[in-house]
């Protein structure tokens, strides 16, 4: 019980709060990279996805430490219920409530991702959009609650997180691909193996030169495709207009 009255829990709360903020900034940025189909050449798209998932798990662990130490600590009087129910903390009611709301949203995102295989993809995406809101609220929570985030290293971390996530959000909105962005260089077709090229060269189907042009990202699904695909086509492209 000595630990409960010592300042170390309080220090842990403050430190893990900043670390959680930075980690979730990384998670949000990686998620944006995955959603915007970044990677595929130097780093695989699947690697970005794996990093997004695993760093999210680490960030959730730090968030759990942040919350548990806050509740256990006797320096401020936030009850265990105030960790999940907003606006019932006697200490800094609004700033703690913001953290609580952010936590609840993040838990919703987390659980929906754990249930991703069982729920409709649209539901998962809808819930996943709330991670942006959760991060914005968490930033306000950090600025309003923490005395660390107002000067020095803490302020630098918060500003860096804000810049990174705002940049990611802007990129997500501006460069949002709705459909496929084409092959990745790590995939076998990107390298164009010799056997496949030979197979294509011996393909008797004549190909008009105009249909050879590579489709850009915007009109990829609707653009005219080459008719010499060396494999059975699963997905019929839409008719030409």
């Amino acid at each position, binding site marked *: 019980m000595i630990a409960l009255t010592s300042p170390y829990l309080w220090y842990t709360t403050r430190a893990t709060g900043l670390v959680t903020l930075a980690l979730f900034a990384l998670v949000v940025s990686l998620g944006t990279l995955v959603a915007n189909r970044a990677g595929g050449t130097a780093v695989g798209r*699947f690697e970005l996805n794996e990093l997004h998932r695993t760093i999210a798990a680490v960030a959730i662990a730090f968030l759990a430490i942040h919350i548990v130490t806050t509740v256990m600590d006797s320096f401020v009087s936030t009850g265990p219920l105030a960790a999940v129910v907003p606006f019932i903390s006697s200490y800094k009611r609004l700033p703690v409530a913001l953290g609580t709301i952010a936590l609840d949203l993040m838990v919703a995102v987390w659980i929906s991702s754990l249930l991703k295989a069982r729920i409709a993809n649209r539901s998962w995406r809808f819930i996943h959009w709330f991670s942006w809101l959760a991060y914005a609220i968490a930033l306000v929570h950090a600025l309003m609650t923490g005395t660390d985030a107002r000067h020095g290293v803490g302020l630098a971390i918060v500003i860096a997180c804000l810049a990174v996530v705002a940049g990611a959000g802007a990129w997500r909105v501006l460069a949002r691909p709705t459909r496929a962005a084409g092959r990745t260089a790590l995939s076998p077709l990107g390298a164009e193996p010799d056997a496949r090229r030979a197979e294509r060269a011996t393909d008797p189907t004549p190909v008009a030169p105009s249909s050879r042009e590579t489709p850009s990202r915007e009109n990829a699904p609707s653009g005219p495709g080459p008719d010499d695909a060396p494999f059975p086509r*699963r997905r019929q492209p839409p008719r030409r207009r």
Partner: protein
Amino acid sequence: MGVRRRAGGFVLLVNPILCDGFGHCAELAPDLVHVDEWGYPVIVTEPVPLANLAALESARYAVRGCPRQALRIERVSDAH
């Protein structure tokens, strides 16, 4: 876990409605999946024997790594 059954084969199947052409499957299971001109997967259609543990593992990685949960592994009784 019990005995791992080696008889039979599996095919990797894509739900083309869920698929958004992220291309992760082609990176994770390059022996099973190619991507077409638009980035959508074209998957080997003949069953792969379950004894091919490397292919099975890569298929499982592809199922797990799909951002749209559009892939699944289906077992078939006869493997050629």
